[in-house]
Every structure is written in structure tokens, then in C-alpha cells.
């Protein structure tokens, strides 16, 4: 029996479909980050003076910091279970280039943990009394920003696989790297809430996403091979 080798595109789709199937059999992977996001956002009015004018002023920052922390929380699960049960080792032995397969894993991770945040962000915006006009920019910036976070985080997660206290180390590694995302994301949202043009920061976020898309899969693949040793 002769068999046809699988193309790398098809292999990536297989990885994406398997990870999606796994996520929908374990719902907590989808629900935990978004619940965490809503919880953190709720803490701010409790700790600060809940004046509507103040809340509207800090809305952009609150949504962005909460989304950032929630994404960080979800990153830990990106490779963990695959390492524990040995499937990640098998992925490196599939004869396919590792970088596209890891990109497929990261995209799935974003679909499962990032997209719910994009959908939940307007809810927090509404609760904080941000203007209706800003929801489009808010969702676009969160979508671009969580994408960059997932990609940069995939390198960090691959690097910290070997260490026992991985999650703290992961945050220490990744958070400084994603500060530009926070700055431009919160800035775009803030501009939109004040009725100004938010195109500049959004384009910069898009540029960051493209840069991360092209570079991080290779870095993640290299980091993973080191961590598996």
C-alpha cells in the first residue's frame, strides 16, 4: 500500500481541528479566561470611587489590563497538556516543519481564549459607560492585541515548559514584551471613546500582529526543541 504524504497546509489544518475539538470537549478552557476577564474588570469600580465620570475615563485602561491578564492566564494551557501526555513530542517527529504546526496551535488558542474576550469587551465598555461609537474600535483593538499576545506568548510558553514554576516565569518574560500592545491598544480605545480618529494606533497594532505572525512561530519552534531536551 502506497500512501501520499500530507502537505504542510493540511497538517496545520489537522492540528487546528484537533485542538478545537479538544477545547469544545473541555469547556473550561473557553469559559475560564472570559470569566476571569469580567471579574478583574469588576474589581476596579469596587476599589476606586465609582463615579460615572471617573469610570468612563478609566474604561479603556481597565478593559485592556483585564484582557492582558486574562490572556496571560490562558497562555499557560497552550502547550502544557500536550507536553504532559507526550503528543507534543510526537508533533516534533511528524516529519512536518514544526513552525507552521505551532502557528496552527497558537491560532486555535487565540480562537478559544482571545475571541471570547473580543466578544465580552463591549459588555465591560457598556458597564463603564464608554460611548457607543467606540465599541467597533474596542473590539478591533482587542482582537489585534490578543493576537499579538498569543503569538509572543507562544514563544514564552515554549521557553518555560521545562521549569516547575513556569506560570510566574512566563508572566515575567512576556509582560514586558507586550507593553507596546497595551499602550497602543488602550490609546486607540481611549481616542475612540472621546470621539477622535483611532486609525493610527490601530494600524500600529496591525503591524505588530504581522511582525509577530512572521517571526514568532520560528522562535517558538526553536524554543520548544530546547525545552523538550
Amino acid at each position, binding site marked *: 500500500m502506497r*500512501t501520499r*504524504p500530507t502537505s504542510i497546509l493540511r*497538517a496545520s489544518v489537522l492540528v487546528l481541528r484537533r485542538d478545537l475539538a*479538544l477545547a469544545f470537549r473541555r469547556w473550561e478552557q473557553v469559559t475560564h479566561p472570559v470569566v476571569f476577564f469580567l471579574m478583574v474588570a469588576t474589581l476596579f469600580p469596587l476599589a476606586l470611587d465609582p463615579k460615572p465620570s471617573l469610570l468612563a475615563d478609566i474604561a479603556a485602561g481597565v478593559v485592556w489590563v483585564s484582557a492582558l491578564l486574562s490572556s496571560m492566564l490562558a497562555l499557560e494551557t497552550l502547550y502544557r497538556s500536550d507536553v*504532559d501526555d507526550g503528543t507534543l*513530542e510526537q508533533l516534533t*517527529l*511528524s516529519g512536518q516543519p514544526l513552525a507552521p504546526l505551532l502557528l496552527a496551535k497558537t491560532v486555535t488558542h487565540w480562537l478559544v481564549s482571545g475571541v471570547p474576550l473580543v466578544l465580552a469587551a463591549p459588555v465591560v465598555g457598556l458597564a463603564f459607560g464608554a460611548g457607543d461609537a467606540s465599541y467597533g474600535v474596542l473590539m478591533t483593538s482587542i482582537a489585534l492585541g490578543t493576537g499579538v499576545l498569543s503569538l509572543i506568548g507562544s514563544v514564552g510558553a515554549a521557553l518555560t515548559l521545562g521549569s516547575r514554576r513556569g506560570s510566574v516565569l512566563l508572566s515575567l518574560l512576556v509582560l514586558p514584551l507586550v507593553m507596546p500592545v497595551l499602550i497602543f491598544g488602550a490609546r486607540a480605545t481611549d481616542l475612540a471613546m472621546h470621539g477622535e480618529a483611532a486609525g493610527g494606533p490601530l494600524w500600529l497594532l496591525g503591524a505588530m500582529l504581522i511582525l509577530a505572525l512572521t517571526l514568532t512561530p520560528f522562535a517558538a519552534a526553536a524554543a520548544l526543541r530546547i525545552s523538550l531536551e
Partner: protein
Amino acid sequence: MCETEPGVRVRLRYDEGVNLHRPPLSECAPEVESAGATLAVERLHLWRGQRHVLRGLGFAVHGGEFVHLKGPNGCGKTSLLRALAGFLWPEEGVIRWRGVPVSEDRDGYAADLAYLGHENALKGDLTALENLRFSTNLRTRTDDATLHRTLEELGVGRQADLPVRVLSAGQKRRVAMARVLLSGATLWLLDEPFTNLDVAGVADFARLIAAHAARGGIALVTSHADIELDAGRVRELVVA
């Protein structure tokens, strides 16, 4: 055939005279590229932390050979297999596959290699069939009928649609072996494949390994048990 530095005891034993009865080939298993299949290890030095585990190990294995790796716990059998699978980078020495150092064409080497480690590499939430469909199609396009046949051949056909987490340890091992069988790889690296298997399972696996060798493939297997094979050439490698 076997060159080592002093202090390393490597014993290769040929049993060429054994029964050349060839068991029926698995119809499901893809053909292997047996032509020119040689795994050569030259002066391999491997450190694990502060421990110098492998000191100048050297051997060569050719298509059609089955190698039984033996040695006490902690002597470096698993480290050797992991180095051969490309997970560990040896501090010194070369591993050649078909005459080419494996570091030069990692993906090409990986496509010719199947590794069964201590972990079964199965997702507990997916069914046996889904697990196999994923791992096999990642390498070559394979239809579900072939996957089903292989699972049946390994005695887990009735468990094909159950989530792997409800299978017994031995049944999981069988599903993992189905992955190795369907990989189409020439070189099999099996780390303690017989753990958790019942008597019939051990016989099944031994038959599959023998069939693989008979088709011109290579199998390196660590096991503490004696393996009885009806394969053409059985060699023992004692790592000490």
C-alpha cells in the same frame, strides 16, 4: 561493527540461525523504504546533568535487524533512544541515518522514524480512532477503514469510538502501537513497549516487530524482558 572506547561494554549478539519463519505482513502497514536503511552511531557521548551516561557508544544497525537494548535501570537506554529520536543533542559523536548525519535533515529523518516513549501520546478526551486519525494523517493521508483495521488487528477494534481516558493502560499501549504501525516509518524506536500488556499483547507486539524487521525495517527496543522473536536477525545491545 561495534567500536567503543575502553570502559564501555557493548555486546552485540547475532542470532542469524534462528527460525526464518516470516509471519504474515500486516496489510494495513504502509511500505517501508528499506533500501539503504542504516542507522550508524559513532562515538556517542551523552551527559544528563552531571552524569556522563553514554561514553563513546558506537554501533551500526541495518535494514531487517531488530536490536534489543538491555541494561540495568538508569544505564542510559532511554537517553540513547531519545538521542536517536532527536530529542537530546549528544555532546559528542554523530548519528547517521542512510549515511547522512541526522542533524542535517531533521524533518526528513523524523518522517522515517517512529518513536514510542513512556507516554502513549494519546489525548484522553479524543477517541482511539480520532487520536489515530490525527497522528497518522499528519504524516500520510490514510482512510478510516485502514485505521479501523489496524485497531482491530491490535485487539482494540471495539474500543475505537471510546474516549481514550476510559481505556485500560494495556489498551492505550495497543492504540499507541497502532500509531507506530501506521506511521510508515522504517526506523522504530520503542521504549519499553511491553509495559502494561497482557501475555497475548506481548506476543502481538513481538509479532509486529518481527514483521517489521522482515519487511526490511529496523527496530530498536528497550525491554527488561527477554523477547522471543521469529525474526531474521536479532541482536542484543547491552548498555552498561
